[in-house]
């Protein structure tokens, strides 16, 4: 009841945390003065403002605020789509473009609602072929197609 606006409270805490990290890291750089600013001046200032804004957002959520409970989070799409991108990033340089695309299609399709092997295989083949055609042959970009 007291914490009706959980969204804003979380947002406020998030901004405060980021701001604090920025202030902490950037205060290691030369700060200078307002007249002659060093590289640390602007980031420290911004980090400070972020902490203040975060406090205001979170504080307001504590006092007033419309009811805004945290929305439900379904982890499966988030995790698998993110994973599919990371898989691409990690596989591309080691195994080449074609295996990376196949793996990415596989992982991202697992994040959806239905997963049909045949369809996913065809899709992976088409996307791999199209990417090779467009990016490698068509645009002449330096991709390793595969290597192991």
């Amino acid at each position: 009841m007291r914490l009706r606006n959980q969204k804003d409270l979380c947002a406020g805490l998030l901004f405060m945390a980021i701001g604090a990290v920025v202030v902490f890291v950037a205060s290691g750089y030369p700060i200078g003065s307002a007249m002659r600013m060093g590289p640390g001046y602007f980031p420290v200032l911004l980090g400070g403002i972020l902490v203040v804004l975060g406090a205001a957002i979170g504080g307001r959520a504590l006092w007033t605020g419309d009811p805004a409970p945290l929305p439900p989070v379904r982890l499966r799409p988030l995790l698998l789509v993110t994973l599919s991108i990371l898989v691409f990033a990690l596989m591309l340089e080691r195994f080449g473009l074609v295996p990376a695309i196949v793996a990415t299609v596989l992982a991202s399709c697992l994040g959806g609602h239905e997963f049909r092997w045949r369809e996913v295989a065809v899709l992976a083949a088409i996307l791999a072929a199209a990417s090779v055609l467009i990016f490698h042959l068509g645009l002449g970009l330096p991709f390793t197609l595969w290597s192991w």
Partner: protein
Amino acid sequence: MAFFDNLALGFGVALTASHLLYCLLGVTLGSFIGVLPGLGPLVTISMLLPITFNLEPTSALIMLAGIYYGASYGGSTTAILVNLPGESSSVVTCLDGHAMAKQGRAGPALAIAALSSFFAGTVATALIALFAPPLAGWALSFGSPEYFSLMLVGLLTAAALAHGSMLKSMAMVVLGLVLGTIGTDVNSGLYRLTFGVPELSDGLSFVVIAMGMFGIAEIVANLEQGTAREVFTGKVRNLMPSRRDIADSWRAVLRGTGIGSFLGILPGAGTTISSFLAYAMEKRFARDPSRFGTGAIEGVAAPEAANNAAAQTAFIPTLTLGIPGSGTMALVLGALTIYGIDPGPRVMTSHPDLFWGLVVSMWIGNLMLVILNLPLIGIWVRMLRVPYRLLYPSIVVLCCVGVYTLAFSYLDVVFMAVSGVAGYVLVKLECEPAPLLLGFVLGPMMEENLRRSMVLSRGDPSIFVTQPISLGLLVFAAILLALLVVPAIRDKRAAAVSEGEH
């Protein structure tokens, strides 16, 4: 009148069969490559530049100009259809353009984007033809203090981009400013907030963040919603804008053209800022700002007009001063010198055929873009009928490949994934990413020009008010701030009165 003689000369050059062909070829290639996420005008031109080496200079430049417009427009297509800002200037187009696409109005959105780009292109080309030298002089009168004040105006409009709480959008702007400080500090050469990652020494790439926060976060959100629901409504009502759409958007197109033409002249300010500002202004002065973000056609028309106008007027400092305003213009400038043409104040007199031929083919390029793209709309819209379970993995793959090609760095792909998660979390907390992106664009320029101004004035802050242009901009910023704060307070009072309504 000399102007018409010049124009006649230009048409004489541009309207030869081979030049028309090169123009068409450029526009077509540009459009199709620009549609791919991550491949904006800069990359497209640099890839296709060697092809043009073998052409004579006028043909080559006409083709390059065609590629430039084609690629810029191609970016808008992707933004509208799949919420992927393939390049920085099309982020704003995503906001309402993609909302329209989801309502089955991708056709009108694409058409209005093409038409307003064409209109803006026509006006901006006329500006170049008539006033290029005086406008170039004006670009020089914008020094560091003026840029700083301009960035301040830009930041104040940023808060208007979101439709949630003011505090939150301010926090998002500041977060964007913070992300913008990542990388090498120009003044001291120090690496800031790079956490020991050398790839961050040139900062995060705007396209990477935008694609993550918009494109990837959107996919996750779509997958999360419901079961086998299709994202795009099946029935596409019509492909062309209705009379009402035109009536709604023509004023926005005019304003967008004005803002874009003006900002395009300033080297460095560029198309990104102009499309953001045009959108924010529209929202600010709209009778019903709440429509924005939910598929308002003005929200597509204004930034598209601004972006294209700026893309054209960016040629002014490039051609007449020899100062490139953007990476793309630097490439064009480089191409000019490869063909043995010295860009600079004398280009109009020393190579009149080239200058006027280019001006006229800019306009013809814009015309061809419309002619080419209006029929393509039907094809693009049909693409949305592909079942989403097949469409989204394709988008993911194209994003990954496109982002990788930006700098051939796998870390950019990782950063896109991180931005996607961040975008997802922020949207869950009702913090919209658009103000963050504007902060990210403006931040580095703001800091740089602030610090530079202070060094130039030897530490005297009055430099910002003693320069007339800077003073004018600061007054404008103050007015904007007042406009921003007053309604917010009034709204709060109104909200306090009608407590418990939500």
